[in-house]
């Protein structure tokens, strides 16, 4: 806060004060003092690690020891070794889950944007899981899925034979679906709230006009609601790709670090770096994750540009800085 005193308080000799109070000097003082910290943070925590990541990915190394330059071998191993590639394929489960989640979110957002008795309660109940700590969710569902506990009790109550139910977490053919279910449970409400926000931003007179013209609910959904929220739907589809590669807490807590074939790509990366100490390998995994995300982002931009051509996109108006 030294800049405040130098600009605002008259303690300095008057010549210096005159100089500081000149608009041009003042302007640069403000610019430098206000943007210095964010720029340092940006450099130290984004661009520096970004550069290092690419550099490290070409080496066989731990945090402290460099064992030699290996070129692109780390990358080749990700695509050929089952332990790495399998983790990547695992995210297909999470993408599938994300799709289910979007459909549910869209369904409930549409329902709740019409007049609903107790709408606030339903909305709140479905949204609240999003606010819960990931570790807490891990414990909640470890308990939920354990043999003979909550889920089995509920299914027993509606007539399933408890003896025939699978082991939700131990059975390798089903445990990833259980974990994806946990992730859907957490994030569905958040998507729903975003969709409701988008639907609510539509001019209410449109619905009235549609009703007068005799449009039914499906037509209202198709012609009014869907166009108004397709931007945010596409955005969420793309985000789900990133999210599914970086799923971390549910498998980490529930399965104790990704046991029984539940280690997602991010868990695998974490283990490679911090348990196996293969930092070069982990960096190569990170670079690939980044490339996938950049492709997804570009895809999103292209879709916005060529497929969805509505002028309501928020990015349309952006007066660039420059007032003084």
């Amino acid at each position: 806060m030294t800049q405040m005193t130098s600009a605002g308080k008259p303690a300095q000799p008057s010549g210096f004060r005159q100089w500081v109070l000149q608009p041009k000097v003042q302007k640069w003082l403000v610019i430098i003092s206000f943007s210095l910290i964010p720029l340092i943070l940006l450099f130290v925590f984004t661009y520096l690690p970004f550069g290092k990541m690419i550099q490290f990915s070409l080496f066989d190394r731990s945090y402290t020891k460099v064992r030699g330059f290996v070129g692109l071998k780390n990358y080749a191993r990700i695509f050929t070794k089952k332990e790495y590639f399998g983790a990547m394929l695992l995210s297909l489960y999470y993408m599938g889950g994300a799709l289910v989640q979007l459909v549910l979110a869209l369904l409930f957002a549409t329902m709740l944007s019409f007049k609903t008795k107790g709408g606030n309660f339903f909305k709140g109940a479905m949204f609240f899981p999003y606010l819960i700590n990931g570790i807490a969710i891990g414990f909640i569902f470890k308990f939920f899925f354990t043999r003979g506990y909550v889920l089995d009790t509920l299914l027993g109550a509606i007539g399933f034979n408890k003896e025939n139910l699978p082991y939700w977490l131990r059975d390798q053919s089903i445990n990833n679906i259980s974990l994806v279910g946990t992730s859907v449970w957490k994030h569905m409400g958040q998507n729903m709230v975003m969709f409701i926000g988008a639907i609510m931003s539509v001019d209410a007179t449109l619905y009235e006009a549609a009703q007068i013209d005799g449009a039914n609910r499906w037509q209202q959904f198709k012609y009014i609601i869907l166009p108004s929220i397709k931007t945010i739907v596409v955005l969420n589809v793309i985000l789900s790709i990133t999210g599914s590669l970086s799923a971390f807490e549910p498998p980490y807590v529930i399965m104790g670090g990704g046991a029984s074939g539940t280690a997602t790509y991010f868990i695998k990366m974490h283990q490679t770096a911090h348990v196996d100490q293969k930092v070069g390998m982990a960096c190569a995994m990170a670079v690939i994750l980044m490339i996938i995300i950049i492709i997804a982002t570009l895809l999103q931009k292209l879709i916005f540009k060529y497929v969805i051509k509505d002028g309501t996109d928020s990015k349309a108006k952006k007066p660039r800085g420059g007032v003084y």
Partner: protein
Amino acid sequence: MAAKKKNDAYVSMTAGQRASWLAVGFVKYFMLALFSFIALVPIVSCVLVALKTDEEYALTPVMQAPANWLNFSNFKTVWVDGEMGRAFLTSFAVVIVVVACSVLIGSMLAFVLNRFTFPGNNLIRSLFLFATLIPGIAMQVTVYQIMSSLNLINSLVGYIILQCGTDVISIYIFIQYFENLPIDLDESAILDGCTYFGVFFKILFPLLQPAMVTVMILKGIGVYNEYYNANLYLQDKTRYATISTALYSFTGPFGNRYNVISAGVILTLLPMLIIFITCQRFIYSGLAAGAVKG
């Protein structure tokens, strides 16, 4: 008003239309109730178990109500033996400092980028824009190396700095908000003899309140629930346990005593529940604002 309109529409329907309208209504409320139930059951089951004694937990079915609804002994156990009190203090301190820093840093940079033309303005914007493409999660490995060479491992300050980090979303939210604050405000303040610093701190900063609330909520929820970095960088768990790492450590001492662990889980989500109930509207609108940025 609206209800009356609906009734008119309902009266004017034919019998067939009326039946399908009722069916749609039934399916709608059934689905809403079912999914609200699914959303709440896992949490409720935790509350039930948290109120049971060890013997009760071992002998009764999990979904059976506890014998004594006021048995808070498990909560006492986690608070004392699990050192949850200390973890809460640490977490709240981190949240408050990080949120305050994010608001200050974000609004200051947004002010500079929105109100001044200068060579480099577009460059700074592009640098931040490109940073959104690089997922923070992918850089964990090298960030760890940088943190350790800066001696910031096992340091609360280091963790706080990392959480402030590159926070593009709040910068965007503030820039958007500045675009809607008229320049007349600045101009009249300057005519009254304000410096640029004065314009920001005395005139504009207090007006940023709605944007601040959004940033505080988005950031506050994220930081309170953060586990990955807390686990990695605050390794001395006896001194620097946050709520997430304290809770995770329950896997050790409390092993399979789910009644005790559940009490910890409920304690952890209590602050969130209180904030959710009191600030529901702000949370919903904050999420929407964060989403528009993309």
